């Protein structure tokens, strides 16, 4: 008897579930769990890391991310506006800046700023090497965010600018009141991406060198890695990264849904 469309769909779905369970089951069965849990999930070691891994390391990671994102956003906005400027030299400067700092590995930029700034200006950013490293992160984040914002600004329909200008608004007023609010809505998803990438890029700050009090999550757990001679601290750090990013992205998704209601 031929199957109805519905039955066929159900069978197909059943096969897909079957494959999924078979793969997961095989992996669980094949893996050698005992040494794995001994090495990577030594609960005794994990317990010893608390509460400092949260109160110092995770906290520093969040603070560095917030600083880098906040200032990176300002810098990115400035660069995006420069790149769209009618004045050619502004466009050149912005283009060169963006191309250089998107092209360089973030690690290199952080090293450059961590050790270059104090040498060049005899000035140490607050927070010591970690602070200087954050400046490097800001510089990199600015370059990426600039391109995201530029795309968002250009995605606002031209008619919006024309309507605002026809009402007598100046170019600056049009940008602030009409274009940027719409551009930011457009770029919320890619900006969330930048934020998550940035959070993980704070792990690069370890190369700038840091004291116990200024260490971020990965640097901190790497130190513990040597203390305990166990990879468990890295697992703990990994779990904490995820514990930070998931609520963060969910919060953004909530904001996005709320805004969409008016559109």
């Amino acid at each position, binding site marked *: 008897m031929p199957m109805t469309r519905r039955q066929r769909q159900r069978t197909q779905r059943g096969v897909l579930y079957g494959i999924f369970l078979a793969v997961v089951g095989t992996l669980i069965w094949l893996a050698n769990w005992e040494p794995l849990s001994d090495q990577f999930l030594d609960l005794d070691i994990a317990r010893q890391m608390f509460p400092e891994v949260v109160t110092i390391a995770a906290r520093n990671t969040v603070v560095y991310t917030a600083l880098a994102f906040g200032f990176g956003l300002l810098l990115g906005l400035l660069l995006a506006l420069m790149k769209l400027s009618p004045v050619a030299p502004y466009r050149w400067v912005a283009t060169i800046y963006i191309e250089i700092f998107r092209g360089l590995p973030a690690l290199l930029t952080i090293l450059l700023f961590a050790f270059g700034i104090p040498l060049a200006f005899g000035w140490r950013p607050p927070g010591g090497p970690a602070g200087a490293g954050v400046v490097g992160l800001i510089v990199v984040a600015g370059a990426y965010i600039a391109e995201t914002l530029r795309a968002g600004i250009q995605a606002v329909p031209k*008619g919006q600018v024309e*309507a605002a200008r026809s*009402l*007598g*608004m100046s170019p600056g*007023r049009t940008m602030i*009141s009409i274009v940027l609010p*719409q551009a930011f809505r457009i770029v919320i998803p890619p900006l969330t991406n930048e934020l998550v990438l940035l959070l993980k890029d704070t792990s690069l700050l370890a190369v700038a060198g840091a004291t116990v009090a200024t260490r971020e999550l990965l640097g901190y757990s790497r130190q513990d890695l040597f203390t305990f001679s166990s990879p468990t601290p890295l697992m703990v750090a990994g779990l904490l990264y995820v514990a930070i990013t998931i609520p963060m992205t969910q919060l953004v998704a909530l904001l996005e849904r709320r805004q969409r209601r*008016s559109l």
Partner: protein
Amino acid sequence: MRADATAAPDGADPADHGHRDRSVPAIEARELRKSFGDLEVLRGLDFEVAAGEVVCVVGPSGSGKSTLLRCINRLEEPTGGRVLIEGEDITDPDADVDLLRSRIGMVFQSFNLFPHLSVLRNLTIAQRRVRGRSKSEADEVARRNLERVGLADKVDAYPAHLSGGQQQRAAIARALSMDPDMMLFDEPTSALDPELVGEVLAVMKDLANEGMTMMVVTHEMGFANDVADRVVFMDEGMVVEQGPPSQVLGSPQHERTRRFLKLVH
């Protein structure tokens, strides 16, 4: 004659119209040229709209009528010639273009309401930022104009929640909230579903009857016939013929006009 009408729009601040001089044309274009690359869209065109006059500009697509309209408030930069707004040269490099534009209401084919702002804020933002009106004053002007276009109940709605006809009426109210001396309409009903065209045209007709100076680029020949003081037929960047609607639409003198009217009817 409508040109002699003195009635200011209901409740409008008379001070805003104090500088209006009926003897000077509201809009005057002289030798206006506009090219996009090699394409010459306006070829040394002379054009005038008297204060209080309603002028409908008709013609085949690509004839330059929208470009003409957009050159008048310099949304499009003319390549040559001059545009005078109530005697002031808006094409002068020293002209305060923003100030002049704020006296010229403009309505677009695609409405162009600000989607991130409520209808009320759409109507108040330029009043406050450009005219410097207080919030309460701007709100009052906005509400009055929304009532005028029949949208008093949509004050707090967002543009996305309005029909096309409602959006266009809100856009007209937004332009009116600046108390403009004249209104430019760029094919205001072309993007609308047929059943929504009437409500927009009715608002425009009311506006014309109140004595507003209007320049309307349109394909609505019925509207042009009923409402216009003068119809201008354009083709290939030039005015081919103009005159009262009965003449231009009823017994056109030029072959090109006749051919066009046959196509649209």
